[in-house]
């Protein structure tokens, strides 16, 4: 990102902190590898120069807002992250007055991890048609023209659907077999904010803590279902998975179905009720017909 735009982020953060508009600005700082980014919480105006923004800023910081309900927080968001803000606003998990949103026009982020700056953009950036944040108080960068959505956007989902049921079952069995239930996918996700996740329930104990193929399958399937119509497509779940389970496939499948059946995409605004909380009396969905 151009240095003057990074400076704008810092200046805005300094302004928000010194004026007392916020207690804390959540943005990106430099990681210990010296080349990638990590989340940074800035409480003091003197520290705003630690804020950075570049193509390794993959993290979705919006999840941190849920814990800070009632406190005034500034936050740096990319467009995908800003959609998560709308989802949380819609669901009453954050209050619009509490957040000062520094929205960044994004050129995409690269494949990244500790000490790793990839050459290629992440897959999610390749089908992104939203380079300007959908909600913000201050905009960093100039809005630009978007490419129109195309059928190619869901190509990976279509490729999976084209396989036979046996191939699909074998594919997912292999993926879920590697899962060690670290729940990094859940913890990194802004939409996974339940104080008691269904997997942690003791009575009824839906999956328990047993790491076994069928339990793993229940975990991933139900999580994907719980995110239907709520996932903003940030793909952080897939990035943090230590064993490379292609979680984006499940989430994109749900996103595509929700778009096809109900014409809805998560997080584009904070007012429209998400589809599984609504209905149309005479709709035909192939259920019970």
């Amino acid at each position, binding site marked *: 990102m151009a240095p003057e735009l990074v400076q704008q982020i810092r200046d805005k953060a300094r302004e928000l902190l010194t004026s007392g508009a916020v207690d804390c600005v959540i943005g990106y700082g430099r990681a210990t590898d010296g080349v990638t980014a990590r989340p940074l919480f800035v409480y003091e105006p003197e520290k705003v120069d630690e804020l950075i923004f570049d193509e390794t800023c993959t993290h979705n910081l919006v999840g941190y807002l849920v814990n800070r309900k009632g406190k005034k927080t500034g936050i740096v968001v990319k467009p995908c992250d800003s959609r998560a803000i709308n989802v949380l606003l819609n669901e009453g998990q954050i209050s619009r007055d509490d957040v000062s949103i520094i929205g960044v026009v994004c050129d995409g982020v690269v494949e990244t991890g500790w000490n790793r700056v990839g050459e290629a953009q992440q897959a999610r950036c390749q089908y992104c048609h939203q380079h300007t944040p959908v909600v913000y108080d201050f905009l960093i960068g100039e809005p630009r023209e978007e490419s129109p959505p195309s059928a190619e956007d869901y190509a990976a989902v279509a490729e999976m659907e084209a396989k036979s049921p046996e191939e699909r*079952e074998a594919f997912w069995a292999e993926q879920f077999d590697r899962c060690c239930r670290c729940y990094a996918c859940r913890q990194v996700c802004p939409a996974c904010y339940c104080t008691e996740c269904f997997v942690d329930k003791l009575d009824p104990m839906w999956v328990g803590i047993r790491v076994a193929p069928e339990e793993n399958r229940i975990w991933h*399937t139900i999580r994907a279902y719980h995110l239907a119509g709520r996932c903003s497509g940030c793909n952080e779940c897939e990035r943090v998975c230590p064993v490379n389970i292609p979680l984006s496939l499940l989430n994109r499948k749900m996103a595509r179905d929700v778009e096809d059946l109900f014409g809805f995409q998560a997080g584009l605004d904070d007012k429209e009720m998400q589809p599984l909380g609504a209905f149309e009396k005479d709709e035909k969905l192939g259920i*019970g017909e």
Partner: protein
Amino acid sequence: MAVEGFSPRMVGFLCNWCSYAGADMAGTSRMSYPANIRIIRVPCSGRVDPLLIIKAFQQGADGVLIAGCHPGDCHYVEGNYYARRRLAIFRSLLEFIGIDSRRLRVEWVSAAEGKRFSNVITSFTDELVKLGPRSEVQVGA
């Protein structure tokens, strides 16, 4: 694929007001239908959490039926409308991970439709016999 002598294990979530009463009617009218179905009575088809469905598959069910009131006739007014959306999405997801969508069946059966209920069970059982058992279910660590 079909397996010789296979008797499918089926779980049915029936809403108390319509489909459970319909099943009762089939019984009192002495209509016969395959005994493969294990019925669980719920207040409304809208109560059926997809977790219940996938848990039933994990515990060994070859097929799961959800039966509720006809849309527009829900005892709780709207429950089956939510169920309809929920089950459309979930069945699609199950298909995506390799659980044949024909194993999850949704039917609207009213309290007067005893004959229809027995027909539904008969046809679902036949379909599951053709589909065969769900692939090896691992229960236990």
